[in-house]
């Protein structure tokens, strides 16, 4: 039976993992590769590294970190931030990443999803999308870019469908209103998108309790749940989350 995935997200700034609330007030937590290694051994199924300042500083993703991660981590990992072209994707994949997450770039230039899928296969192409509630849009959610700073005239569900058509092999759906707040995932939009696209949806933004993960993996129809604060603050280990999910009847991998 296909298992539900627990994904740990590491936002990296100045070579350190950082964590903010609603994309602000970040604090530094530690070395990304060391942290990632520990998470992979304690039961994380997958990891995501976001180089969160690469875009703003107009520099490519930190390939040395990607390489170091690949030498030390033997579970799948995605990288994002600072990807400007198919050539940048290629460099990240050759450095050892399994998937590349495209966010603002894909909104600005949707063809990059198709180009990436053609060059590397759609399994390597993750659409990262940040959404915010806005009743003016058909799905009630609007796409925002540039780390939450830039609202787009783009409906969340419409964009998800279009991106999958173009070549996205997976969608990491991050709800900005709930990010870092630890009060639960944004269930409505997660379920709506998961039911209407043919690729897996990773729920992101808002996990604080294991019940939040359990809800989004069942009612929310997500294939995977992404966590950051929950494990970075040592409130939970990945193993503890897995044990509790299993107790809720959710099929997960025990490390």
């Amino acid at each position, binding site marked *: 039976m296909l298992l539900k995935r627990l994904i740990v997200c590491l936002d990296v700034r100045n070579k350190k993992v950082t964590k903010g609330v609603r994309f602000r007030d970040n604090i530094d937590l530690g070395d990304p590769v060391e942290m990632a290694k520990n998470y992979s051994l304690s039961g994380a*199924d997958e990891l995501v590294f976001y180089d969160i300042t690469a875009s703003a500083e107009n520099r490519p993703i930190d390939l040395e970190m990607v390489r170091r991660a690949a030498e030390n981590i*033997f579970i*799948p990992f995605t990288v994002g931030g600072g990807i400007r072209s198919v050539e940048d994707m290629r460099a990240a994949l050759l450095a*050892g990443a*399994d998937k590349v997450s495209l966010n603002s770039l894909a909104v600005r230039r949707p063809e990059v999803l198709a180009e990436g899928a053609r060059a590397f*296969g759609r399994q390597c192409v993750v659409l990262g999308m940040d959404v915010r509630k806005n009743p003016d849009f058909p799905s009630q959610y609007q796409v925002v870019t540039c780390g939450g700073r830039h609202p787009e005239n783009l409906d969340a569900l419409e964009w998800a469908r279009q991106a999958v058509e173009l070549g996205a092999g997976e969608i990491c759906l991050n709800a900005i209103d709930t990010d870092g707040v630890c009060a639960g995932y944004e269930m409505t939009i997660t379920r709506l998108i998961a039911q209407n696209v043919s690729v897996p949806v990773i729920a992101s933004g808002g996990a604080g309790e294991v019940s939040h993960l359990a809800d989004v993996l069942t009612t929310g129809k997500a294939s995977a749940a992404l966590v950051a604060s929950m494990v970075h603050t040592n409130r939970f280990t990945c193993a503890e989350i897995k044990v509790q999910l299993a107790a809720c009847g959710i099929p997960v*991998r025990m490390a």
Partner: protein
Amino acid sequence: MIAILDYGAGNLTSVQLALSHLGADAFLAADATSAANADRIVFPGVGSAASGMAGVKARHFDRLLADAFEAGKPVLCVCLGMQMLLDSSEEDGFVASLGVIPGVVRKFSFADPEVKVPHMGWNTVEHDAKHPLWRGIPSGTAFYFVHSYFADASNASDVVGSTEYAGKQFASVLAKRNFFATQFHPERSGVFGMKLLKNFLDWEVSSCC
């Protein structure tokens, strides 16, 4: 020395890093000549059947693998590398493949629109037969999969592991003499994936089977 066959399809970094992490001397072989003297062969793969087979033939890896089969040299095939062992694939229309293991590669097809294809993520593998590469790995262990096509092997005796996805059982591990083939990616499958790779490095193929 371990030759990782580089036939131009997909990214081989993670396979090489995983083998190196285990202390193996693993190198990327760009043609059959450079792979000929290796003690063991890894036939990896991400990509499509047509471009994969074209790359394999252009580099004469078809001959190399046939020779390795005859010589009893241990060969580990992963994902597309596994699928290319069968007679043919339905991907890209019809692609004649290596024919080491009888069977056909078919596309996943589900009536339920909520079932995602590709089959992506961790799934469990049940052992159908004993094998030296299963040492220390319990039946039911989860491994990491990413694929839209699956191996429909003709002979049950070639199937040593199977997996269920959305109600469909498929052969996730095939083995024949000195060949061992996994649909999942051991190099991305954490501790048990690494254990399987270690078992491959330690595998002494006996003449009896």
